[in-house]
């Protein structure tokens, strides 16, 4: 195992040294107990305790607006496909958000590959950050097994009180350690402390929904015609906030934008939401998920059922963002709890030590 440690008093230096030759983005406090990934140049700018950022780090992997091609129709249909990217280091990615990036990686590397995504991904270094305790009551990371790290980072920081213990997962991560020259070899005591912390976490993080993890797919296999979708449909405002903030929602629209000369311009993609009524509408006027209930069900099935069949993976990361942001107070933990109860699969002891 490759572990090093960083004394806390060296943390500011660490971030400043990183920022000398690369853009560094990390969680920065905003108003109203909200946080956002923003560029930083010193460790002091980074929030110490933070709930998941308003937007997940997907905004760097799959930006909200992204040029796919530029064109010039002065002389026929001439287009040049492009990719836009920025080299950067993402610091402070929670384990739920690491899982979210892993999900997007699977989607965009599946054939036909999305080279825009893959190029951008290759330019980003990821430094993860462990949650020692729950961020807030919306999280359900234990349910989906994302409360501890499952890879997907170059370096991973865990707070051990007076220092960080850092797992080096990749060559790129190691180069950062070598270059910044602030780290020490981890000793036996550090490793024991990490182990003790993880042991303690096993008690803190208890299943947020009383169901055995392995039974989740079964719940959704049987819940397609549940009345619970109607209940959600009655509350939902179709605003699309939930899909915007979801780390694994990646639906998009493709749009042309001509410049003022009406000759040149760009074709770009922008986040779209399956919660909007026009999302699945065709020219003849038929809309294939006309009811809000059907659209809410679709959202849940794209987290708990369809990706399980396709990628053998849940696409809910447990980050809690959809519940935190929903103006209609649609709550993921409550929805899944109700579905589980309806199927008679409630297990109060599930996921508790």
């Amino acid at each position, binding site marked *: 195992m490759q572990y090093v440690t960083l004394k806390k008093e060296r943390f500011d230096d660490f971030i400043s040294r990183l920022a000398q030759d*690369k*853009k560094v983005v990390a969680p920065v406090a905003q108003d109203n107990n909200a946080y956002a990934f923003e560029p930083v140049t010193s460790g002091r700018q980074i929030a110490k305790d933070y709930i998941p950022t308003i937007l997940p780090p997907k905004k760097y992997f799959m930006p909200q607006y992204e*040029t*796919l*091609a530029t*064109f010039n*129709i002065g002389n*026929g*249909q*001439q*287009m*040049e*496909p*492009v*990719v*836009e*990217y*920025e*080299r950067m280091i993402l610091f402070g990615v929670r384990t739920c958000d690491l899982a979210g990036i892993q999900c997007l990686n699977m*989607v*965009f590397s*599946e054939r*036909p*590959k*999305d*080279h*825009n995504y893959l*190029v951008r991904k290759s330019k980003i270094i990821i430094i993860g950050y462990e949650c020692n305790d729950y961020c807030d009551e919306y999280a359900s990371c234990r349910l989906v097994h994302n409360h501890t790290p499952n890879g997907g980072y170059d370096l991973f920081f865990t707070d051990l009180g007076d220092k960080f213990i850092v797992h080096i997962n990749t060559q790129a991560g190691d180069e950062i350690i070598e270059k910044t020259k602030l780290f020490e070899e981890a000793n036996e005591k550090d490793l024991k402390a990490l182990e003790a912390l993880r042991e303690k976490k096993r008690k803190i993080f208890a299943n947020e929904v009383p169901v055995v993890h392995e039974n989740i797919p079964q719940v959704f296999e049987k819940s*397609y015609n549940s009345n619970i979708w109607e209940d959600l449909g009655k509350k939902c405002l179709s605003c699309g906030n939930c899909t915007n903030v979801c780390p694994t929602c*990646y*639906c*998009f*629209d*493709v*749009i*042309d934008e*001509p410049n003022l000369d*009406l000759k040149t*311009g760009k*074709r770009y*993609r922008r986040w*779209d939401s*399956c919660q909007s009524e026009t*999302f*699945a*509408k*065709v*020219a*003849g*006027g*038929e809309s*294939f*998920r006309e009811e809000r209930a*059907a659209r809410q069900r*679709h959202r849940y*099935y794209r987290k708990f*059922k*369809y990706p399980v*069949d*396709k990628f053998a993976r849940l696409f809910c990361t447990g980050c809690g963002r959809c519940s935190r942001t929903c103006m209609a107070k649609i709550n993921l933990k409550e929805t899944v709890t109700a579905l589980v109860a309806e199927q008679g699969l409630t297990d109060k002891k599930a996921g508790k030590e």
Partner: protein
Amino acid sequence: MTLKRVILKDSEYEIKRARILRTKQMTETEKYFEIQLPGGESLDHEPGQFVEVSLLGIGEAPISISSSPTKRGSFELVVRDVGKFTGQGGRLTGALHKLEAGDEVGIRGPFGKGFPVRILEGNDLLFVAAGLGVVPLRSLINYVIDNRRDFGKVTILLGCRTPQNMLFADEVNEWNKRLDVNLNCTVDKADPEWKGNVGLITSLIPGVTLEPERTFGVVVGPPIMYKFVIKELLKKQIPERQILLSLERHMKCGLGKCGHCQINDVYCCQDGPVFSYDKTKNFPEAV
């Protein structure tokens, strides 16, 4: 430390600059296009597949390939001007209607899974097309006619709103004249010259004689039609997996990513647009 923009060589969004060779206004709302890829390159498609047609600055839309792959050197599309037809929208299809021979369009594709031609070989075929459905179905019908010996009995049922709406009327006449094709047409509303049937397409099915176990029903039409046609075909004892449908959905990328075309857990653009009924009956969102 700034946003870099570089040329992407293997982008799936790259279009080919194709040239329009010929156009024909078929009806008030439908226009025909014969199109050639750069250097006469073959589109290399399967019957039932579609292309994404672009006009840069306006947009892109999925359009079925209407010609059979047996036609080499160029391919054919038929575009409905959505704005004229429905009274709203129609940005791209309206702009396409303004194009004439010599103009360029952008082409991506072909996309999707077409009709399973190899599986159809040796079997009897019952084609059912309503409205614009004849456009994609024509790629398969002409493929079958060009390889006529490889298939069993061929029956074509066509339906449209009025005789004036009939697409490819000359070609339909040619099919009708062939002794190796049975053809029957119906219109919703006749005019004095119309000698064929009047009524819905479903009314033609009971009269067809067929051997269900060796018959494939191939159905393309507007979304509301499927439920009723499938019911009639099942009454004829055609097995579920031998009923083939081509489904229309909102599409953007054609690459199984943007999510617009999703039907439960399948992507119409990649897994379809052609599906067999034994599959779609398990998708509550399909028909």
